[in-house]
């Protein structure tokens, strides 16, 4: 064990952990929302994220940027980032909705058992990942370095970069926005009603299918934002980029309490930070190990996660 490494770099490891955790959290929202309403683990959500990373890249390529381009000036930069964001969010949302309409809704109509949903989710994930794998010859793609990382200020000797601020800021804004939307808006009330009791909600005049569609759209939009931030920060995508990050995001959702929006944020940040500490303390090869040990141990003591399952139980 290397305590020097951990404590010497504690602020830096915390920062980069938070930044990774924020992206986990954005993707975790998709799992949590769908689970909260449908009691379904949407394994295809990792591919919703993957589609977002690719479509943002294609948008930039269409705008004339590739992995070798120099960083653009402020005007074109904002245009490129906003265009990438809009396209990634739209593409991710469309993918999520397509999966719902093509794969899950027909099953619901036939009252299929939960196992059928589960295997359909895994199948949809495979189909999406493999079709991109075949289409892109399974090659890795580098991104244009649109926002070269620059130190804005330092805390405790760790430099905080512009991109880290962007990631954390955007994630917080999206989280607060989503939280307010679900808790305050009329559509949000519909989501909570269906999550609490779908049949009663239907009797009260809530259109269940429309609410479910909305949940997939919201999850897709958040994954699209996560995909754009991922592209900007890690500068890379590949057909199976969603697999590990999807698994981590799912774990983050469970860690925080699946079905709980704030739990997804907390779980994501916690997982990101703990993984980084583990990499510092034990070495990089122990990163995933420690993340999942944390999950297992925590679930032993709090089976419903840190904040519990609460999408349905949130105040009316």
């Amino acid at each position, binding site marked *: 064990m290397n305590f020097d490494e951990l404590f010497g770099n504690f602020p830096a490891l915390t920062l*980069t952990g938070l930044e990774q955790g924020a992206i986990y959290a954005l993707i975790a929202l998709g799992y949590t929302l769908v689970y909260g309403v449908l009691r379904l683990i949407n394994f295809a959500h990792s591919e919703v994220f993957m589609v977002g990373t690719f479509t943002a890249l294609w948008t930039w390529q269409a705008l004339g940027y590739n992995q*070798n381009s120099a960083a653009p000036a402020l005007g074109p930069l904002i245009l490129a980032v906003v265009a990438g964001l809009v396209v990634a969010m739209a593409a991710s949302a469309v993918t999520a909705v397509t999966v719902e309409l093509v794969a899950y809704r027909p099953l619901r109509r036939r009252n299929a058992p939960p196992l059928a949903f589960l295997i359909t989710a*895994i199948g949809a*994930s495979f189909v999406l990942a493999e079709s991109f794998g075949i289409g892109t*010859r*399974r090659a*890795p793609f580098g991104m244009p370095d649109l926002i070269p990382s620059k130190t804005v200020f330092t805390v405790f000797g760790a430099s905080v970069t512009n991109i880290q601020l962007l990631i954390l800021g955007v994630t917080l804004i999206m989280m607060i926005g989503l939280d307010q939307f679900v808790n305050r808006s009329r559509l949000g009330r519909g989501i909570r009603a269906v999550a609490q009791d779908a049949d009663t909600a239907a009797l009260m005049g809530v259109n269940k299918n429309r609410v479910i569609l909305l949940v997939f759209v919201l999850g897709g939009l958040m994954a699209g934002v996560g995909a754009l931030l991922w592209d900007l920060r890690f500068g890379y995508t590949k057909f199976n980029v969603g697999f590990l990050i999807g698994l981590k995001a799912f774990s983050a959702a469970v860690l925080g309490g699946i079905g709980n929006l704030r739990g997804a944020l907390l779980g994501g940040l916690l997982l990101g930070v703990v993984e*980084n500490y583990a990499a510092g303390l034990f070495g*990089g090869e122990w990163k995933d190990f420690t993340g999942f040990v944390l999950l297992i141990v925590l679930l032993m003591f709090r089976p419903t996660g840190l904040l519990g399952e609460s999408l349905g139980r949130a105040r009316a």
Partner: protein
Amino acid sequence: MRQKLARVLGGVAIGALVFSGAACKADSGSEAGGSKAACDLKIGFFGPLTGDAAGLGIHMRNGTKLAIDQYNKDNADCKVVLSEYDSQGDPAKAPALAQQAVGDSKVVGIIGPAFSGESEVADPIFDEAGLPIITPSATRPSLSTKNWKIFHRGVGNDTSQGPAAGRYIKNVLKADKVYVVDDQSAYGAGLVDEVKKVIGSVAGEDKIQVKQTNFSAVVTKIQSSGANVLFFGGYYTEAGLLLKQLKGAGWKGTMVAGDGVNDANFIKVAGEQVAEGTILTCPCAPATAAKGTFVTDYKAAFDNAEPGTYADVSFDITKIFLEGIKAGKSSRADLLSFVNSYSGTGGATGVTYKFESNGELDPAQVLVWAFKVNAGKVVPDIEIPKS
């Protein structure tokens, strides 16, 4: 969950292949090795043609294909067929593919497996079937110590590449603080061990995982260690990402890596500015400066692409098999003894191919080159002196 499913499906597939392999083996026994060149024999290429490391595999496949196409042009009445086994560089996919190759009785020789990890699981299968292989690129030293009768290596191994990379770091870069990172693969970990033997004490070391994408923890460690050189043992995708994130965090040092990174795709992942100045070694001479008409033939055959790492080696070692087939060695056993006793100079590399009893290339023939990324291209730098 997904892995479990994949495992079940994989198990079924392997089972099916074992059975079909056994069935094929039974009828291949009746074929006698004639003295005239047999027709429609197959040479297999085993390596990644898709996936993270496909860039490396495709150049080798192209070298092999070029040799076979040229042979077929001269021997139009009795052709040799190229069979491709796309391993994606993944040791988990290799055994089933190896069984498939073994099960096809027309396959008399294999070029590959391209990587060390897949070699460790595929070579025992080839050994059992007596199917001769010559690898153009699997450089883990221990591959030649497993008593596989069929094993031949057409290049030097990491006991020449690793120390040479270490000497380059010490004598040319004159680095005092070297950080080493490997990807825990059979190739990457082995190469880093050899490098460490030469440079002595390191500023720090860490391990990453193949397919890892977020390197922030290791980036932090490298930066705080104050290292000015990073040696990376692994393949180009992780190398490109690691370097990109490292330079993004403001690191100013130089990355040195082995033949697994020596590919144009490294620059594609990292981007030209980031990759600039990176040193890549290879226990081979520059393919772009190969002898004879190889470079022009290669460009003409493959859309004007420059031959990449090991394309020339693959071309030459494929010709060894082709010479054997031409001389009437049409069974696996005959071709194996032909390769074992072979001695001849490759047209593209100029290397005299002669294998020792453990399958290693004659040590006198091994050379190690350093390459440098310059303006978005991998260009030859120097041949690293032997001591």
